[in-house]
């Protein structure tokens, strides 16, 4: 049987993949997808901890995380659409007007 550590290691690997995606990719949509990967890695560790403790709280927190992820995706994609209308580009390097 897989143990708690196995799930946590898998969750850590997925989270690191998401982190790498945020930094390495030059595409706003892929960056949002990487954030989703990170959120799911955290969800996995929540469920694994909840299973390990025999508590339903882990699954309930996942429910809330998914809600926040849905809201984040909706607002983030709306912002991406707005940015794309301005610059015809999805490269985050082309949105540097606020850079000091």
């Amino acid at each position, binding site marked *: *049987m*897989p*143990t708690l*550590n*196995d799930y*946590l*290691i*898998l969750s*850590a690997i*997925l*989270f*690191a*993949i*998401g*982190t*790498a*995606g*945020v*930094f*390495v*990719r*030059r*595409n706003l*949509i*892929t960056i*949002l*997808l*990487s954030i*989703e*990967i990170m959120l799911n890695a955290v*969800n*996995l560790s929540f*469920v*694994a901890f*909840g*299973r*390990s403790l*025999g508590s*339903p*709280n882990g*699954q*309930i927190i*996942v*429910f*809330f995380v*998914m*809600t*926040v992820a*849905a*809201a984040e*995706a*909706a*607002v983030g*994609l*709306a912002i*991406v*659409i*707005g940015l794309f209308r301005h610059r015809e580009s*999805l*490269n985050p390097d082309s949105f540097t007007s606020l850079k000091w």
Partner: protein
Amino acid sequence: MTLFYLFGAVAVIASLLVIAQRNPIYSVLLLIAAFGALSGLYVLLDAPFVAVIQIIVYAGAIMVLFLFVVMLLNAPHEETEHDEKVHPLRRPGPMRFGAALAVALVVELLWALTRDGGEPAAFEAPAVSSVRTIGHVLFTDYAFAFEVTSLLIIAAMVGAVVLAKRDSHSGGASAPPM
């Protein structure tokens, strides 16, 4: 254990391919595959409720939203002309920093998780998998958070509509007000 490795391998490989793709559409589709594998892992963890809402909400709603946006924006490919020529180690700072950060994160977490000598055991606590229990806790202990969540959704919905709305004076064919 075999199923765990199978689902885990699918999740990791699909996630790696998500951030390796140039075309966002393939990224979205691969992420759906990764979410399917994660849903299998939730089943292995005796959490069928989470497994089902992972498929319905994440793969079914959020990813379809992404897919809509990718197709709406005509899926512009990433500008690759300077990326292709430059060796990965000589790319601009944030990319190197991000890759190094990811490797450091993995090493650190693996070290932290394997350092403790206690023999890891399979889960001994009884599984809480019934939707009835989850719903009961959700609507008693977490009732306030649940209600606040609905406010969050409303705010996100209104915000998305406002942000994505065309300016009425720049584009003549603006959507009718809802």
